[in-house]
């Protein structure tokens, strides 16, 4: 006898996410027996094979962990190796890096929100049928994504794995004429972005809540994307970046080649929603307005609203970048020497990347050769929390949804976290001697 509520769902190699993950749900007579998020990505062992490299080589290599967050890996890597070498970068370099980081937020959030997430809300398998049904929408989304890529390329030399930025500065400074073009285009894009905001407002977000711990950087003076200390929503103080292992507490499970993390609870969440929850008051006023229009109130415990929080951050990064670009055009650029003397040392760096907080740590010998490396990636911190969400939501969804609908809601949940699974399969626990 078949029971409509006894079934096995196997969603292998989930589409429209970065990297390889599978969802497994077993139910029997209306009861949930097993819910698993399997991460099946092959290992690449980055932290072991960068040993022996020089600081700038480590940084250019480590960006290959991920195409989508290559800028974030470079910047976290640069901060860590500079801490190890005792380098303090110039104000100009810091400002250029902040812009580079925001360009990646615009690129990554646009790609995820407009191309990977939207099809679910239109009942489409991908952006392809949408290109025929909604050509104006797709063209607008492509133009916004292209602008973000060009913004990265003008600063970094190219959009993927930029080469112009390096340890202690810039190999080749951006062309101010091109910077001005980006400024003008970004200014002109504001109505286009607002049109996307209007669309996102109409999307019906699944109403499932589960409070968890929200972890992000926090900075006294700004919405923390480039700098700050580690903030967890379960504690009142912040933790210095150097103590990041106290935060991530990584462990290994057999069904995931990505490691798992937990802090004060069974799991925690990083990313746009965690940042908006922890630092709402520091968002650009326009972004706070956008959040109100989108109905996003901090704190929000619905993980599907990570998409909404990404839209809020697109507004934030657009307006914040306009201000930074205007300052840059006003102040101009001066040539600076991007050289350094390799020394023995150890350093940590943390930065917010589109998918959440990213930690890097490196040790170097007296010749500046890498001795050990550690990278703790946002998705590896989120994977545990995604599985906990699934375990909480499946029993609630089971009585009220068809099997297909449940499967779609689980895929949408995974996608809402914007996981970057290639990234997440490189964790390393180093034993420091």
């Amino acid at each position, binding site marked *: 006898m078949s029971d409509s509520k006894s079934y096995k769902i196997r969603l292998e*190699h989930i*589409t*429209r*996410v*970065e990297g390889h993950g599978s969802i497994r749900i077993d139910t029997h007579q209306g009861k949930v027996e097993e819910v698993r998020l*399997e991460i*099946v*990505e*092959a*290992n*690449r*062992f*980055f*932290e*072991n*094979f960068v040993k*022996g*490299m020089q600081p700038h*080589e480590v940084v250019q*290599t480590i960006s*290959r*962990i*991920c*195409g*989508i967050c*290559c800028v974030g890996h470079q910047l976290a890597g640069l901060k860590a190796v500079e801490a190890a070498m005792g380098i303090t970068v110039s104000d100009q370099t810091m400002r250029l890096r902040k812009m580079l980081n925001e360009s990646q937020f615009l690129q990554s959030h646009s*790609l995820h929100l407009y*191309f*990977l997430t939207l*099809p679910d809300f239109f009942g489409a*398998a*991908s*952006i*392809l049928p949408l290109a025929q049904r909604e050509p104006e929408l*797709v063209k607008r989304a492509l133009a916004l*994504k*292209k602008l973000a*890529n060009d913004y990265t390329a003008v600063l*970094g*030399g*190219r*959009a*993927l*794995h930029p*080469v*112009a930025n390096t340890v202690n500065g*810039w*190999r*080749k400074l951006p062309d101010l004429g091109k910077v001005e073009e980006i400024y003008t285009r970004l200014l002109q894009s504001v109505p286009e972005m607002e049109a996307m905001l209007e669309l996102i407002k109409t999307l019906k977000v699944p109403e499932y809540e589960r409070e968890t711990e929200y972890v992000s950087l926090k900075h006294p003076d700004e919405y923390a994307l480039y700098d700050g200390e580690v903030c967890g929503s379960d504690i009142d103080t912040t933790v210095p970046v150097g103590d990041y292992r106290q935060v991530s507490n990584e*462990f*290994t*499970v*057999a*069904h995931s*080649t990505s*490691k798992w993390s937990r802090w004060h609870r069974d799991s925690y969440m990083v990313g746009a929603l965690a940042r908006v929850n922890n630092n709402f008051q520091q968002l650009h006023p326009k972004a706070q307005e956008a959040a109100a229009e989108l109905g996003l109130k901090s704190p929000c415990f619905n993980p599907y609203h990570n998409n909404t929080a990404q839209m809020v951050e697109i507004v934030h990064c657009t307006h914040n970048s306009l201000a930074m670009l205007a300052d840059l055009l006003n102040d101009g650029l001066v040539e600076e020497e991007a050289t350094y003397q390799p020394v023995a040392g150890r350093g940590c760096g943390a930065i917010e990347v589109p998918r959440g907080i990213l930690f890097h740590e490196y040790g170097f010998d007296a010749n500046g050769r890498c001795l050990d490396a550690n990278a703790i990636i946002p998705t590896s911190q989120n994977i545990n929390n995604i599985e906990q969400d699934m375990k909480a939501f499946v029993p609630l969804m089971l009585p009220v949804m068809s099997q297909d609908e449940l499967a779609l809601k689980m895929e949408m949940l995974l996608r809402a976290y914007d996981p970057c699974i*290639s990234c997440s399969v490189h964790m*390393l*626990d*180093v034993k420091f001697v």
Partner: protein
Amino acid sequence: MKPKVAFFDFASCEGCQLALLNCEDDLLAILAQVELVEFREAISEQAGRYDIAFIEGSIHREQDIERLYDIRSRSKVLVALGACACNGNVQARSNFVAPAENYKAVYGEEDRNRVQVDGEYWPLWTHTRVRAVHEVVKVDYQLRGCPMQPTEFLHLLKSLLTGREPSFPANAVCVECKKNENECVYDRGLACFGPIAFGGCDAICINSGHLCDGCRGLLPYANVKAHRQLLKEMGIDITSVQNRYRLHLSNEPDAGEVRR
């Protein structure tokens, strides 16, 4: 009928598929010419046979090999997309360390020993060696570089769609670098792979003030011996020479070996 085109990724940063999505101006025009049947990073549609299959990433485990055999058997033309697929790229450097040691360094000995004997999930934990796609199946065309060049991708696709043979001239990176009138990296006192590396990238890294590390692989006639000698004469010690060769070229014949 429009040709069926599919994209598959193995161990990689997925940046080469992203580089394609970054061809925003041409994307809709490309999509009008082909039927995109699989592209896991961006779409959910799937199909059985492919006229052109693009493979991103390197091949590490038994299950990856089986998946690649299956794709090859269903594809008329198979293209290695990007450096990871063409020569194993940066992760091939892990081939100089035994897999058990790599697992130990990343997960710790205890966890490695636990997950590798897990009754259900052991196949996930069977990394043996980083291999380029051509080391496992026949590859018809290579799109080199980390990341791949969108212009070369468009050239290849247009050629295949119109029945012409695509052309990827085996010129050194130096050729394009000179055209761009960059100051020679050697004149800046630094070692460069431009003379022996496969061009076609417009010397993009040198244009941005960097140098060439040969991510597009070695030219078929590359004089590796002379290049090593040149680096030695510049006073670069053997460990550093070995390190440079093992950034992007660990799996290239002649390049992975240390020669004194």
